[in-house]
């Protein structure tokens, strides 16, 4: 039958933001458990789709990022409980619970202030995907994607790292999906747009699992056929280096491409000295010589 697809495998890397300052965690103690349950169910949902599917989960907060689940955890140790759950799923569930507990207990004492360093965790994910690609048997194909699940605030301080991650993902055909629980994340939106992933801000936290299963479980090739939330308009305006404000028109250093919102005589990035500002309209004219 034509509807039966080929056996491509797909690798899903979930970046799970566990920063304790997220509102969803501070507001309700039990909310975090709900999110965790959703992550576990979603992970197993992914493994359920195809027998060859692979999974990795990276936990991330402001102090550290670490693997919650990776290929090392694939050796299934029977749980001893036989309640009808597929052994692998039971094992995955147990592993995630155990490792996340470990990860959280390490953090509790000396957590540095600051936001969750999601870009770095994505970088780790890309390294992992890279290795999985290398280890793939000859002739097999693998789709890989990263799902970022976060409730953190939007901030531009990791801009550079994010951009590097997005362009690498684009180059390596890794799709980046983002599910934010609370705030809109402009930067991550750009990442989704660049790599062709889905972006969703969950309208309500109650049905998190439903949203995950609906938008993020289908693999990118299948998504084309489904009716999903329309892509959001991405704000591609630049943030200036001096005040980190979004600007429409700015000045760009010809040496290092740093962006400034006002003319300044010296570039703060590469220390180049600039000549007189010159009337702005005259500059572009020079760039367009009449032949």
């Amino acid at each position: 039958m034509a509807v039966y697809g080929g056996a491509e495998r797909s690798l899903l890397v979930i970046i799970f933001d566990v920063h304790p300052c997220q509102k969803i965690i501070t507001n309700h103690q039990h909310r975090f458990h709900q999110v965790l349950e959703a992550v576990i169910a979603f992970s197993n949902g992914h493994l359920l789709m195809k027998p060859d599917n692979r999974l990795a989960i990276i936990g991330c907060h402001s102090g550290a990022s670490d693997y919650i689940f990776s290929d090392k955890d694939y050796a299934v140790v029977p749980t001893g409980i036989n309640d009808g759950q597929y052994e692998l799923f039971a094992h995955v569930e147990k592993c995630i619970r155990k490792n996340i507990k470990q990860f959280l207990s390490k953090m509790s004492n000396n957590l540095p202030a600051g936001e969750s360093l999601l870009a770095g965790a994505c970088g780790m994910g890309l390294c992992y995907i890279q290795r999985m690609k290398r280890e793939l048997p000859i002739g097999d194909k693998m789709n890989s994607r990263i799902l970022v699940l976060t409730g953190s605030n939007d901030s531009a301080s990791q801009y550079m790292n994010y951009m590097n991650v997005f362009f690498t993902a684009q180059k390596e055909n890794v799709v980046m999906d983002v599910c934010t629980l609370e705030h809109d994340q402009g930067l991550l939106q750009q990442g989704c747009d660049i790599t062709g992933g889905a972006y969703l801000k969950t309208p309500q936290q109650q049905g998190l699992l439903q949203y995950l299963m609906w938008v993020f479980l289908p693999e990118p090739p299948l998504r084309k056929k489904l009716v999903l939330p329309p892509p959001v308009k991405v704000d591609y305006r630049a943030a200036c280096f001096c005040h980190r404000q979004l600007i429409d028109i700015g000045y760009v250093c010809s040496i290092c491409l740093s962006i400034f919102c006002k003319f300044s005589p010296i570039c703060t990035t590469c220390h180049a000295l600039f000549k007189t500002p010159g009337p702005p309209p005259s500059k572009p004219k020079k760039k367009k010589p009449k032949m």
Partner: protein
Amino acid sequence: MADDDDVKEYRWETGYEKTWEAIQEDDQGNLEASVAEIIQRAKRKAQMERKGHTRLGMMRHMYIILDASEAMHDQDLKPTRQLCTLKLMEGFVEEFLYENPLSQLGFILSRNKRAEKITELSGNYKKQLEVLKSNFGQPNSCSGEPSLQNALELALSSLKHMPSHAIREVLVIMGSLTTCDPGDINITIQKLKTASIRASLIGLSADVRLCKSLCMTTGGDYGVVLDDVHFKHLLSTHALPPQAAAEHSSSALVKMGFPHHAPTDNKTSYLAMCMCHLDSEEGSKLDGGGYLCPQCRSKYCELPAECKVCGLTLVSAPHLARSYHHLFPVQPFTLIPIDQNRTPSCFGCRVQFKTIDKQVYKCEKCCEVFCLDCDMFIHDTLHTCPGCSTNQQTYQTLSSES
């Protein structure tokens, strides 16, 4: 690199090299490991050379002069020099515009003792390649003799009008060993030098003194290809932005616009014609999407573009961001002996270190340890150290260098 060209001897003039001694057999008498190590070392060496120039020539304006003479029919590059060049050019143009987002390219062909400009400088690689294919890719495209001087003069006449902050470059792909010139080419070379145009040349046949002096005088690179792989390698060295020499170009702040999508989200989205297709044959379509120039509100369907109405350069922020890694590269990692007890696995991909690896790579900034594959991947592609970027103290912020 260009400076020591005078003193560099040809390889056959240097002392006797015992190349085979670099290769050692391992216990089983295999060479593979040794060869792999040499390759790795070479790769890492190339990486080390590339670190940390904060002053790079990012706004490049480059004319590529292609030899379209009889000599290009030679079959020493498969299938012919012409087709091999065309194929590699396709890759190069794309890579060039990817690595140098605000740069512009143009093509000049030289055949029948003349030079003709087939494309003006622009940043649209699809259009460039289309024109190149129809002008250079045909079986009858290459004929007669090339004229290096005419081609250089033609490039010079366009490039000298470029703004002073722009890096001006000429890249010549030369198949022929001769050139048919109307006057003294040395004068042209001097003119190029005074206009601070950097000329590089890739020869497809043999080392020619004139070509070499052209490159040396203007500060470009000269190379002669060994085979198609080497050709590709030589080309790719030109894709990375060159270091900006202070005397060559004066820096400037260029005013640019960062357009957003046309406002389709509010219900009163209005239709508009895009400016980029106005003069093309199929004409411009009327629709709601696209990008609006923040200065004059004219619409464009893709970025980057130069506003035809008010002349503002329009780019998107990710476009600029694509080249930031040249400015803030990841520092090379240091080789350290493997210590399986302290660090059992790679920080990036979590691969288990095996004793066979012998050496692993450590980032000096965040002290995390990586495997060779991740080391390569981080420096070549990712340009962000996962260790540093997951550490509150070391992650790279926008203002880290200020």
